[in-house]
Each structure stands twice: as structure tokens, then as C-alpha cells.
């Protein structure tokens, strides 16, 4: 059982180990690092404000318009960015607003010159808002759903219009979850790698994550990478602690809100406003997705399917994603079981640190973004000399760890519930070990495990963070190939691959979602 702890702990330890060895690391804390750190925070703050602020109004509009055609479909669409690999989204944003994008003609005329495209801060912000506005909207909507039905009825009886209802009902409900949601979005933006790598462009718009990558892949400056890594860990740890203090749930997953009866009478004017807000959000979110589809279908898909490199990359992706997903749920199950055994054993005594570790260990993984873990290993493997040979193993392990917070979140309630029901009976009947898993716990956990498995696979398929460090001509996954084709301006190929990747990940997410919903 301790395997899980060791795996997680060792990685963290190794990163620090690497840090200690390189005394040069300290000299790397210079102006460059400060500038990068400042930009990291700056773009994250802006992204958070631009995502969360509008989300409040979009969620309110959705909540007040409980019935209009396509509402459920739209909310489902709002879950898609969560499942979309960042690289695909980045491509979609470029295809829409980029220099050669669909809107570039219109923008050029508007700007009275050549549209320069959206590389740099604006590109990063648009992509981040594309990801996080729908996420925040769905989370706010969940918060609004916690308002008891009686209170909506009361508000209707007291004759509250839109303003008082917002002031007395909606805003208090949303304010309670605001710190958690803002914290989550902020964290996601601070650790964003792919978006910044693809849309950042130039040293003026670089975050710590991308700087780590550049230090390792292009400058071969491990000392600087270690310094950057330390800064990144410090930063994310501080934010993580802050979020936990606020009581936010960092691993929050957005479930679909069910349409409920609302008693508030909305006037024509308000209805129009709400629908306008919703439509604006819809086009913003649907735009890049549509662009990916349009551009992807425009590519020569038949030729791509026969392209040796594409087929090899697809196979490599699957070959890496399957073990990563299996490893992820294996570790998660071990962690969950470990926590439960400790909890069950102690009965009324307070929790030990080991129980706490196994309970929140998975969330701690979030403090170490894939690039950071990858960078730690990169430095170590560089000294051992077999850097690219270890690439597949690295991708599998790091992607497995990345998916763990989610996997634990899905598996733990089911496992704990099953354990609470069966523990005494199994003890009495002497059912233990593998028999117990096969006969008792296994069937109960099949669905949650399936959910976690599909999710972990999708995450691993779409990840660019680790493969960007370890990828080479011999080991290429789909995202890596996609990045290369974009880099060499083979835009059509890139669009086709993006479509393929997007469809794969969405398919897996849909399976995960379906299994999760039926289990609930």
C-alpha cells in the first residue's frame, strides 16, 4: 500500500535532490526569473478575472432561464473544454482569431491594417478564458442550485424582481463558492503549459512552466531549470495552501445541473438580456471548437490516415495512455484502500499523519505540474545518460500521477461506502485479499474505476507537458506530432490531427461521464 506514497513522495524528493546538487541554481535567481514569474502571475490574475467575472453573469442568466430550447445541450457543450486537450483548443483559437484565421479579414479591416494575430498575452487570455469561463459557469450554476426551492418560492411570493433576487438569493450563494472557483481557475492558469507554449510567443510572454521547458530543451541549462522549478513549486504550493484555507475544493468536477422549476417571473426585457448573455458565451465557447472541426474537415484526412508518422504517433499515444491509465487507477485504489484501512483501524482516535497523507496525497500531486515532475526526472536522467530511452516510462508515470486526483475523487466515495457496509461481514466470514476484491469490492467499484480509467486515458492522450520534454523522433505521441506540424507550418496536417485527437479525447470523456452518471 505504501507504494503509492513512495511513488508520489520520491518524485518530489528527487526534484529537491536535484536542486541541492546544483549549487549554480542560486545564481539563476536573476532578473529573467523574476520577469517570468511576474508574467506568470500577471496572466493568471487577468485570466481569472476575465473568466470568473463574466461567468457570474452567464451562470445567473442560465439559472434564470430554466427553459429554452437547447439549454441542456449548451450546458453539455460547456463541459467540452474541460475534456479538450489544450493543444487542440490552442489550435482552434488560432484558426479563429489568428493571423490566417477565419476572422482575420474582418479584424484587419476593423483595425485598418494587417491583423497581427493573437500571439502573446491576448492569445493566452483568450485560450484561458475559453477553458475556464465554461468551467466557472458550471460551478457557479451548481452553487445556485444549492439555494433551496422554498427560498425561490418565498422570493416569488414577496415579489422580488431581478435585482433583489440577485442581491438576496443568487449573489450570496455564488459568493460562498467564489474563492474556491477563482482559486481553481487561478491555479489552472498558473500551471498552464501548452497554451502559453503555443500562443505565448517570445520571451515577453513566457511563464515559469514554459521557461523550464525552454531551459531544458533549447538552452541545456539545468541549473536555470532547477531554479525555475523551485520557483514554480513555491508559487503553486503557496496558492494551493491559500485555496485550501479558503475551503475551496480544488478537485471540483462540474456535473450537469438539472433543470428545476423556477417561480420567478422574468420580464421580457430581462429575458432578452439573459438570452443575449448566454448567446455571447455560447459563441465564444463554440467558436474555437467549430473552427477545429471546420479546419480539420478541410484537411486531407484520407492522406493523413495513410501517413506513417500519424499512424505511429496514434499507436504510441494509445500504447502510453493505456498503461498510464491503469497505473493511475491502481495507485489511486491503493491510496484509497490505505486511507480506509487506517481510518477503520483507529476508530475514535484522531487521524494519524499517514492517514492524512493518504487522504490528501493525491491532491498534493496537483502542486507538482507534469512539467515540473518531468523536469526533475529530466535533470536526473541527463546525468545518468539514458534520457530518451526512459521517455515512455516517464510519460506513463507522470500522466498516471496527473490523473490521480480525479481518480481518487471518483473511487473513494464508492470504496469507503462499500467498506463501511462490508467490513464487519467480511471479517466475520474471513473473506480477505484478492478473493475479497474479486467477490465483494470489485463489482461495486467496477463503474467508478471505469470512469477513472477513461478519464485518465483522455488526460494522458491529450497531454503535451511531459512528452514535450521527452519526445524525440523515435517516441512521438499525437500532441507531439501536432506541435511539430504546427511548428513547420503544415497547418492542414495539424488541423486534421487536432480533429482526430479532439474526437478521441471527447469520446473517452463521454464514456467516463456516462459510467459516472449511471453509477451515481
Amino acid at each position, binding site marked *: 500500500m505504501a507504494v503509492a506514497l513512495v511513488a508520489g513522495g520520491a518524485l518530489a524528493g528527487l526534484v529537491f535532490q536535484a536542486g541541492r546538487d546544483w549549487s549554480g541554481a542560486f545564481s539563476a535567481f536573476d532578473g529573467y526569473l523574476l520577469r517570468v514569474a511576474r508574467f506568470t502571475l500577471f496572466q493568471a490574475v487577468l485570466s481569472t478575472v476575465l473568466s470568473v467575472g463574466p461567468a457570474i453573469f452567464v451562470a445567473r442568466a442560465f439559472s434564470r432561464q430554466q427553459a429554452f430550447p437547447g439549454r441542456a445541450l449548451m450546458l453539455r457543450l460547456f463541459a467540452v473544454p474541460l475534456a479538450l486537450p489544450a493543444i487542440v483548443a490552442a489550435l482552434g483559437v488560432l484558426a479563429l482569431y489568428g493571423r490566417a484565421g477565419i476572422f482575420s479579414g474582418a479584424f484587419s479591416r476593423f483595425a485598418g491594417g494587417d491583423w497581427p494575430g493573437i500571439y502573446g498575452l491576448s492569445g493566452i487570455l483568450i485560450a484561458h478564458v475559453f477553458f475556464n469561463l465554461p468551467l466557472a459557469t458550471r460551478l457557479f450554476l451548481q452553487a445556485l442550485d444549492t439555494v433551496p426551492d422554498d427560498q425561490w418560492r*418565498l422570493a416569488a411570493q414577496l415579489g422580488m424582481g431581478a435585482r433583489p433576487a440577485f442581491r438576496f438569493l443568487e449573489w450570496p450563494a455564488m459568493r460562498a463558492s467564489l474563492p474556491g472557483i477563482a482559486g481553481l481557475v487561478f491555479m489552472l492558469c498558473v500551471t498552464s503549459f501548452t497554451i502559453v507554449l503555443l500562443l505565448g510567443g517570445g520571451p515577453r510572454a513566457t511563464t515559469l512552466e514554459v521557461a523550464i521547458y525552454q531551459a531544458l530543451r533549447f538552452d541545456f541549462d539545468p541549473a536555470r531549470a532547477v531554479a525555475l522549478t523551485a520557483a514554480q513549486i513555491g508559487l503553486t504550493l503557496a496558492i494551493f495552501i491559500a485555496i485550501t484555507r479558503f475551503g475551496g475544493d480544488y478537485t471540483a468536477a462540474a456535473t450537469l445541473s438539472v433543470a428545476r422549476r423556477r417561480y420567478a417571473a422574468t420580464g421580457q426585457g430581462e429575458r432578452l438580456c439573459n438570452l443575449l448573455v448566454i448567446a455571447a458565451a455560447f459563441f465564444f465557447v463554440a467558436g474555437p471548437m467549430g473552427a477545429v472541426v471546420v479546419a480539420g474537415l478541410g484537411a486531407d484526412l484520407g492522406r493523413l490516415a495513410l501517413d506513417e508518422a500519424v499512424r505511429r504517433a496514434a499507436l504510441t499515444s494509445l500504447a502510453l495512455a493505456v498503461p498510464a491509465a491503469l497505473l493511475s487507477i491502481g495507485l489511486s485504489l491503493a491510496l484509497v484502500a490505505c486511507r480506509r484501512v487506517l481510518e477503520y483501524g483507529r476508530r475514535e482516535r484522531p487521524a494519524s499523519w499517514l492517514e492524512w497523507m493518504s487522504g490528501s496525497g493525491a491532491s498534493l500531486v496537483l502542486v507538482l505540474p507534469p512539467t515540473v515532475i518531468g523536469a526533475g526526472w529530466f535533470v536526473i536522467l541527463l546525468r545518468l545518460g539514458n534520457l530518451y530511452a526512459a521517455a515512455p516510462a516517464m510519460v506513463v508515470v507522470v500522466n498516471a500521477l496527473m490523473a490521480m486526483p480525479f481518480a481518487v475523487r471518483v473511487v473513494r466515495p464508492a470504496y469507503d461506502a462499500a467498506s463501511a457496509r462490508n467490513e464487519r461481514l467480511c471479517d466475520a466470514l474471513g473473506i480477505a485479499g484478492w478473493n475479497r476484491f474479486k467477490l465483494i469490492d470489485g463489482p461495486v467499484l467496477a463503474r467508478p474505476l471505469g470512469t477513472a480509467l477513461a478519464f485518465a486515458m483522455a488526460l494522458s492522450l491529450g497531454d503535451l507537458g511531459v512528452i514535450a520534454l521527452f519526445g524525440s523522433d523515435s517516441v512521438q505521441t499525437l500532441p507531439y506530432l501536432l506541435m511539430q506540424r504546427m511548428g513547420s507550418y503544415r497547418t492542414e496536417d495539424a488541423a486534421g490531427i487536432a480533429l482526430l485527437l479532439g474526437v478521441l479525447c471527447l469520446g473517452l470523456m463521454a464514456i467516463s461521464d456516462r459510467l459516472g452518471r449511471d453509477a451515481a
Partner: protein
Amino acid sequence: MTGRSGLEIALEKVAFRYAEMVMGFDLRFAAGSVTAIMGPSGAGKSTLLNLVAGFEAPSGGRILIGGENVTGLPPAAHPVSMVFQENNLFSHLDVAANVGLGRSPSLKLSGEDRAAVSDALARTGLSGKEKRLPSALSGGERQRVALARVLVRDRPVLLLDEPFASLDAALRREMTDLVGELHSRIHMTILMVTHDEQDARQIADRVVRIEDGRIAGSDAVEAPSPGGRLPESGGE
């Protein structure tokens, strides 16, 4: 508080479909009367109240309050106050604000409104607790706040949907007495859903029984004196 009396409530061939159940109500409640609504869970007791309050719209028939057709009007246009079993208060607003909402849904209170609020709080035994938050009140006190809001709203109809069901027997009796006392001053028409026969007899002058979405019976209560003592019956 004008002390004006209640209005007659009439449900004329009211039909309502809830899931597979088709409900039909056709009855009148006299102005100023107190009626206990009883019957098994899911029989349609709360639906009856929701129809009168305007939270549900009937699929057929008319609902008249004081002779005026209110069918299909928004809840705020129905001259009723309703008290639920819980969630009657906004948890982030203090007692005075929760009551004040009964006067102005945007909490813009005049001096007169404020006076009415403190008067209502005094009558419900809540003086001195104006600044408390609902979380610092007991279950009984929270329902008292809801009743205080009923007083400042001063509507001719009061709907009580098992408002005291989560309180213990002694407190329930006390709260029911309070409702009886308020009724003896204001004479609003009261419909009260309850499971407790004794509560019903304590305050109501009529008991209407509902089964499967229909009126199954209607009996006058022999001793309609509010707060009157009755021999201990079997309870629940």
C-alpha cells in the same frame, strides 16, 4: 395592522396533473376560517396550498380569492403569505431584515415599515433578537420570524405547510397557540397542512381530508375554541 378580516377562497373545479396523478379540487374556505388539511403523504396537500399561492397553475378550473380570479397570476399577485416547514429565512440576513423583506422585496424600508417590523417582532416574542442571524436562532424562533413576516405582510390569506412539523410536541403546541392568537386579532383565512390530529383540533374549525388528489371528507371540529383543551388522543 388594520385588523381587517380574511377573504373567502374558492377553488372551482380546479384540475392539476402531477406526474401520473390527476388532482381535482372543488371547495370553498369561508372568510376568516381556520382549516386543517390532513391526509397521507403525497396525497396532494401541499399541491393544494401551492395552487392557492400561485406556485402552480391549474390545468383547468378557476381559483378565486375574495371573489377575484387569481388563476394564472404570478405568486406575488396572490394576496397570500405562506410559511414552509423550513428555509423560510435567508441565512445571511438578520432577523429584522428577514421580516423587513415582507414590506419591501428590495429592503427599502420607511420609518413606518421599521415600526411595523419591531411591532411584529414584539408580538411574536422576538424583541431584542433583531440583529441575530438565523443560524443563532432555535428552530422555533426561526418559525416565529416567519410568522412575524406574515404580520408585516398583512395579507388576508395565510398558508401554513407543516410549519411546525420539525419541532417537538410542546413547542408545536406553543407555536400553534401563537397562530391562534394572531388569528384572533387579524382573522385572516388560514389553511394549515398538518399530520397531527391534536394540532388540527387545537386551532381549526374544520378539518379537510385529502386522498389521492381528491377531497375525501370535511368535518367541522366540535370545539372550535382556539387553544381549547382536549383529552389526550393517541398522537401520531
